[in-house]
């Protein structure tokens, strides 16, 4: 290591702190406990999808369908709740449907051998279209009130959505560092041929990675739907850019083989803070996209430099 990585991590952290100082200076409403929990809630969704995308990118893949999966799975959950399913059953169905959409992606990538970019881009279009068709492009309102706990409730001083995000981060970190699957997925991203020669079931690993990414997107969909108490076919639009930016900014390499969930967490918090701060100082939200786009490209450049610094096998 990892000098570059440590530097990058430190840089991100300083950037986050500097941003907080800047926004605090610009507005008295920024540095409050209430706004802090707001940032956590706003970032929670990004953290959850980001954790899934981290796994995918670690295999040198990409998942452009997370926003669409988020929307379609939310719609499925909302429809089930409307149809009288219990809260738990509805949420479980939503997450399961996200996993199935991920499974389809994974089978396309691992089974048909089509590039992840193509598969998930196509899937993004299809899932989004299904969500729109199914709802006639109308939001589903009036979901059971106890769903709202998942979006706006709190456990002690912490918002439930942030607690969920934290649990996801913890689970993903343990998965990557402490399980067979975690090593396998990095090996597949680094050198699929070598991994195959060592007996790693590379197709199965790839399929599971997309399943987890889909399930994470659907879990994020639960949080979004619960927060608004509404399911919309346009939910999660453009989320893939933010998620991928958070992941790459956090130091997970596009070249595969590495996965840093803590980096993704930091990346997502930066994007969340940026969005929150810009809103508070009345900068129109489309400027956020501009900043995120720029940050994303910088992160990709840093990734390239990092790889060139070390001698490649």
């Amino acid at each position, binding site marked *: *290591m*990892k000098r570059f990585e440590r530097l990058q991590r430190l840089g991100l952290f300083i950037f986050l702190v500097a941003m907080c100082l800047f926004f605090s200076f610009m507005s008295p409403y920024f540095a409050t406990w209430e706004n802090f929990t707001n940032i956590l809630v706003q970032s929670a969704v990004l953290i959850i999808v980001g954790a899934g995308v981290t796994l995918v990118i670690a295999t040198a893949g990409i998942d452009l369908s997370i926003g669409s999966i988020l929307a379609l799975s939310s719609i499925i959950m909302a429809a089930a709740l409307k149809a009288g399913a219990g809260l738990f059953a509805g949420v479980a169905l939503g997450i399961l449907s996200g996993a199935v959409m991920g499974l389809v992606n994974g089978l396309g990538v691992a089974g048909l051998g089509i590039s992840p970019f193509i598969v998930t881009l196509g899937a993004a279009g299809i899932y989004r279209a299904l969500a729109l068709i199914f709802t006639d492009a109308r939001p589903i309102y009036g979901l059971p009130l106890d769903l709202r706990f998942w979006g706006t409730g709190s456990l002690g001083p912490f918002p439930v959505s942030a607690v969920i995000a934290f649990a996801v981060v913890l689970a993903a970190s343990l998965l990557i560092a*402490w*399980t*067979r*699957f*975690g*090593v*396998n997925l*990095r*090996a597949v991203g*680094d*050198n699929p*041929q*070598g*991994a*195959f*020669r*060592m*007996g*790693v079931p590379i197709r199965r690993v790839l399929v599971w990675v997309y399943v987890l990414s889909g399930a994470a997107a659907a879990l994020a969909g639960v949080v979004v739907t619960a927060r608004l108490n509404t399911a919309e076919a346009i939910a999660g639009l453009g989320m893939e850019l933010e998620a991928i930016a958070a992941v790459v900014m956090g130091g997970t*390499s596009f070249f*595969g*083989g*590495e996965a840093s969930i803590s980096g993704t967490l930091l990346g997502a918090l930066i994007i969340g803070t940026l969005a929150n701060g810009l809103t508070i100082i009345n900068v129109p939200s489309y400027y956020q996209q501009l900043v995120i786009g720029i940050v994303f490209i910088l992160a990709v450049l840093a990734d390239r430099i990092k790889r060139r610094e*070390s*001698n*490649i*096998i």
Partner: protein
Amino acid sequence: MINQTRETAGALMADALVQLKGIEKHFSGKIALDRAELALRRGEILGLVGDNGAGKSTMLKIISGVLKKDAGEILMEGQAVRINSPVHSRGLGIEMVYQDLSLCGSLNVWENIFLGRYQTRSFFKMPSPVLDKRKMIKMTVETMASLGIRRLDANAPVRNLSGGEQQAVAICRCLLFHPRVILLDEPTASMALKERQKVLELVRGLKERGRSIIMVTHNLEELFQVADRAAVFKEGRAIWQGPLRGLKPDDVARMMFVGKA
């Protein structure tokens, strides 16, 4: 000497541990192996030599299950075996060190060594997918030490190691699970003289402990240092197989390039 090929091949049938018969392999129309024969005896070191592109690596990859043969059969202790994947060959006690080493640069040393067959922990006597890192690091350090490599950090990404160190990791990985048959595809290619000697010593040591080894090499001096017998490959066929005793490197070189003794 051509006669000797036939003789030894006949005599080998009886005590061959691994035997390949009539192996063919095509790559999109191009023939890489053309009815190639090879026999490895129990407890010997068989040197595999031949020009670039002669089919040596392809032959070993067929034994290790990375490539599927188009025709021919593989026998182990006289029994036909099916090897369709690296998992099969590992199950039969066959390990291979690939010419490109097949390491994952961003994974660290122990992760590479235990790739695909991790040591895991059990909780309350139940198996789990949780890695037993401490055990794997300990085994890594011990095996590396037995190769004479002591200064290596088991937690360092393999990408940061020197070529020779990477080669040592790849060799260490194949030794850890006590294979019966070891396939080495140019195991000393990127090593300095001293490391190279160490690996050759190790290969001899493995033989003494009853392992059977096929080693590809381009270095004829090295071949004569360690191998008991040799097989000369040319254009996808083993044009000669026999004991090295009584031969000189020049004899082998002549077979490699002229195609006859």
